[in-house]
């Protein structure tokens, strides 16, 4: 789960990472009132779950309250397009107003899970405020790394190594190390999968701040962070994906016209791949899980079909333990109830497969039964054209 910048800063501040003074607002009037509290002008920052906001016009300076009103008025409700939002952009519903700070240096701090060593790794780079992936590919050596031992956090010596390694002036090393240790503590405490401060700044008067912040939370650990669940912003998610998540379905909308319903994540991805291979384009990723119930299949169908681009549907189930006759019965019931008009290709394998095929064929509905994945993909792509 992703959270907004201001929410991430709220979390970080709670663990002792210095963040600029700021306030999140929803209207230009609120922006004007909030801006009065800052004497040296404010930075107005659009709050959407996407990076590259500055380039897209989502970060603006306002020298006084009047200007803050005007900037917020323009920003709120606008479609912000960045390299991460896609061409359709994201509507801005809230903006963060922050004190403007005198920047001396911009650095990068981040923590991710390093799969190869099975633990989180703390990354630091003297070059901040820019796209870190770009830095990583241009000069990988400039990114300093320290592994975090689970339960131990970032040790002070590790933080000092990173701080000196980034070339911070000795007078700032203490404050920077403290902030880094706090960032690591926050990462572990909230079960983040990613925590990033880019840029982490040193001001001309020697203070350090998280000028931007990004936190992604581990969905598998949300059960022990009920307070953080409130931070979910449904405006930032595709409505169909939100709908699917309520039924425990893993659905991701894509831009093709072949709807897919598959059991298992790997097979679901492979099904998308083979549709492409057959000359078509998948409309979605949809994993109904290992033991999909009739209700889940029905909901999966409904969500799949509400995508208006879908011209044909491929159901690819490797039953194994899930019985094909049960599946077929569920599919027929769902297709009848939802009055599905588009052609449906069904490929299924597993226990009672013959009985399952018979149920589909005798249903009087527009089913095409396929043998194997290749046949299924070719048939559905033809039907979608």
């Amino acid at each position, binding site marked *: 789960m992703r959270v907004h910048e201001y929410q991430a800063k709220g979390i970080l501040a709670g663990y002792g990472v210095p963040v600029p003074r700021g306030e999140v607002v929803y209207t230009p009037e609120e922006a004007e009132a909030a801006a009065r509290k800052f004497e040296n002008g404010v930075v107005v920052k659009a709050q959407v779950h996407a990076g590259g906001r500055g380039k897209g016009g989502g970060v603006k300076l306002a020298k006084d309250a009047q200007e803050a009103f005007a900037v917020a008025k323009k920003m709120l409700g606008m479609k912000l397009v960045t390299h*991460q939002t896609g061409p359709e952009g994201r509507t801005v519903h809230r903006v963060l107003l922050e004190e403007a700070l005198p920047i001396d240096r911009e650095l990068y701090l981040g923590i*991710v*899970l390093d*799969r*190869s060593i*099975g*633990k*989180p790794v703390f990354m630091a780079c003297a070059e901040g405020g820019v796209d*870190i*992936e770009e830095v*990583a*590919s241009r000069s990988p050596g400039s990114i300093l790394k320290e592994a975090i*031992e*689970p*339960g131990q956090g970032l040790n002070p010596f590790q933080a000092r190594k990173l701080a000196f390694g980034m070339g911070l002036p000795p007078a700032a090393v203490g404050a920077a190390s403290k902030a880094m240790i706090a960032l690591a503590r926050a990462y*572990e405490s909230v*079960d983040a*999968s990613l925590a990033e401060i880019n840029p982490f700044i040193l001001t001309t008067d020697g203070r350090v701040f998280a000028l931007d912040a990004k936190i992604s939370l*581990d*969905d*598998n*650990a949300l*059960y*022990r962070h009920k307070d953080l669940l409130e931070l979910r912003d449904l405006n930032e998610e595709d409505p169909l994906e939100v709908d699917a998540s309520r039924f425990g379905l*893993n659905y*991701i909308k*894509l831009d093709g016209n072949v709807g897919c319903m*598959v*059991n*298992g*994540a*790997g*097979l*679901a*991805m*492979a*099904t*998308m*791949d*083979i*549709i*492409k*291979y057959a000359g078509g384009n*998948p409309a979605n*990723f949809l*994993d109904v899980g*290992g033991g999909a119930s009739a209700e889940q299949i029905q909901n999966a169908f409904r969500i799949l079909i509400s995508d208006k681009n879908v011209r044909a549907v491929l159901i690819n189930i*490797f*039953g*194994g*333990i899930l019985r094909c006759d049960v599946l077929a019965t569920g599919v027929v019931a769902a297709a009848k109830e939802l009055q599905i008009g588009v052609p449906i290709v069904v490929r299924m*394998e*597993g*226990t009672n497969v013959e009985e399952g095929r018979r149920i589909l064929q005798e249903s009087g509905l527009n089913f095409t039964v396929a043998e*194997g*994945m*290749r046949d299924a*993909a070719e048939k559905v792509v033809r039907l979608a054209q």
Partner: protein
Amino acid sequence: MSILANEDTRVLVQGFTGREATFHAEQCLAYGTRIVGGVVPGKGGTSHLGLPVFNTVQEAVSGTGANASVIFVPPAFAADAIMEAADSGLELVVAITEGIPALDMAKAWSFLRGRRTRLIGPNCPGLISPGKCKIGIMPGHIHRAGRVGVVSRSGTLTYEAVDQLTRLGIGQSTCIGIGGDPIVGTNFIDAIGLFNEDRETDAIVMIGEIGGTAEEAAAAFVRDNVRKPVIGFVAGQTAPPGRRMGHAGAIISGGSGKAEDKMRAMREAGITVCLSPAEIGERVKERL
């Protein structure tokens, strides 16, 4: 022969009395697996499916002589169950549970270092040595004993590949689902290394997916160490970046984890890379 498990493996079920555990334990027993008991804290002294239930893994090991376990414990408690199994000296632990918090797994992973336990999973279908033993949730009947080793990050996609092999008359020595999480106990290199040493495995199928760089690392290992034919597939060639595709570990992030990079590395290492998931069986047949 087979790797990791055979007809003599004595298996405990952790979380034995749960619905899923019960169902799959019955299936494993029917397949011929030597399930010798289970562990459910607080239910020690009772019996389930005609087998003894213990409070701790330690007691269960003393009571049954088990040397392996399969874990169906709910995600919040599963990392702890893994550590308990390792602490009791079990040689093989298969964690089926999906949804374990990543930092819990990081802790368990550190705990396993220096211990003799081999962990398979979590978030995996388990492993099967056809005709000998099944420690997992895969449908036994699609498998057939033979000489091809299969290792995969996926569940149902593995069934698909195995089904293609079996239909072509190609049997399997052992099939291992290593799991779809970012941190797993056994990686491609471990499994491919074991198959490479196994005198009764003639070829290896590896099924990867987007996310991380385990396939690239495995490709380098194959190039340097493996002389048996290796046939591979990578799921998620059409997956968009930045989205988690069902598995916690299946995500292209920060420009790494793309299918095309994995496929290129595998091809350069001499691995036969299938573009379509429908051709895995045929490609194996060609290389045998």
